[in-house]
């Protein structure tokens, strides 16, 4: 194997599309059967890898069921800011409710005392 054969061998794995080589190496490859065969192997490798991209494997039946089980709860579609606003609003409503209940309770106690105090 000549030095040029070695140079061709070293250059082939770096080529995305195995094209005809230029310059000295190209001229060498036109006359060297060993280098032509090596180039043909890399071409075949590229074609086979590319063809693999056209083949789709069937996913196992359990895949969809597994995803559906894992996403049991819906995603959080509401932005965080809106979440915080909704939380604050709920807090205000709850506080107002508690204040109103306390006021009603106090009024009831006062009324009861008036009634019992009067008797």
């Amino acid at each position, binding site marked *: 194997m000549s030095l040029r054969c070695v140079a061709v061998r070293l250059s*082939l*794995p*770096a080529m*995305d599309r195995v094209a005809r080589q230029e310059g000295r190496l190209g001229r060498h490859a036109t006359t060297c059967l060993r280098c032509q*065969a*090596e180039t043909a*192997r*890399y071409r*075949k*490798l*590229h074609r*086979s*890898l*590319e*063809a*693999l*991209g*056209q*083949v*789709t*494997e*069937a*996913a*196992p039946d*359990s*895949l*969809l069921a*597994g*995803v*559906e089980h*894992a*996403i049991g709860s*819906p*995603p*959080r*579609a509401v*932005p965080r800011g809106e979440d915080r606003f909704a939380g604050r609003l709920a807090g205000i409503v709850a506080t107002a409710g508690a204040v109103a209940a306390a006021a009603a309770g106090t009024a009831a106690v006062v009324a009861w005392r008036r009634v019992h105090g009067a008797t």
Partner: protein
Amino acid sequence: MASGEVRPEDGDLLLRARNGDRAAFSELVRAHQNEVYTLALRLVADRELAADVAQEAFVRAWRALPRFRGEARFSTWIHRITVNVAWSQRRRASRHRADPIAEVFEEPAAGGLSPERAAESADMRHRLLDALATLSDPVRSVVVLKDVYDWPHAEIADHLGISVTAAKVRLHRGRRQLRERLWDEVGVAR
């Protein structure tokens, strides 16, 4: 379906899924599960692990849907997530050994090929899948993404967290190793 094809119906399903419609998301999973599983299988070379990767990728996609702005197609987006999941899971399961996958490889339609050529082509695919499975995970990931899925070097480097130069070095090494495993030194097919 190839990843480059446009599925116009994805738009409506995506919109509904983003609003929490699980049935719509299930339809998306049904439509894309084979592509996603295939990509995962090519990356990890292990059927059981590939199924886990595909499932995790869809679950992550569901959780991230509110942030998906539709700048890329859903198929492109889910493929990127799959690569990230495969990469992280493979690293975590580094002790898990790859199984030969050729025996369950599904043959594509061999329309137009003579029986001899179809058999030769199928044999080459089997040997190629076996050879791919013997590559190290970092090398195989680069070879699959570049030579099978035609990703640009920069995107591969970005997803794998390596430099473009490192991606090219791994690609070079992977192609050379595949060539050595597919043909012996005197060039005779094994």
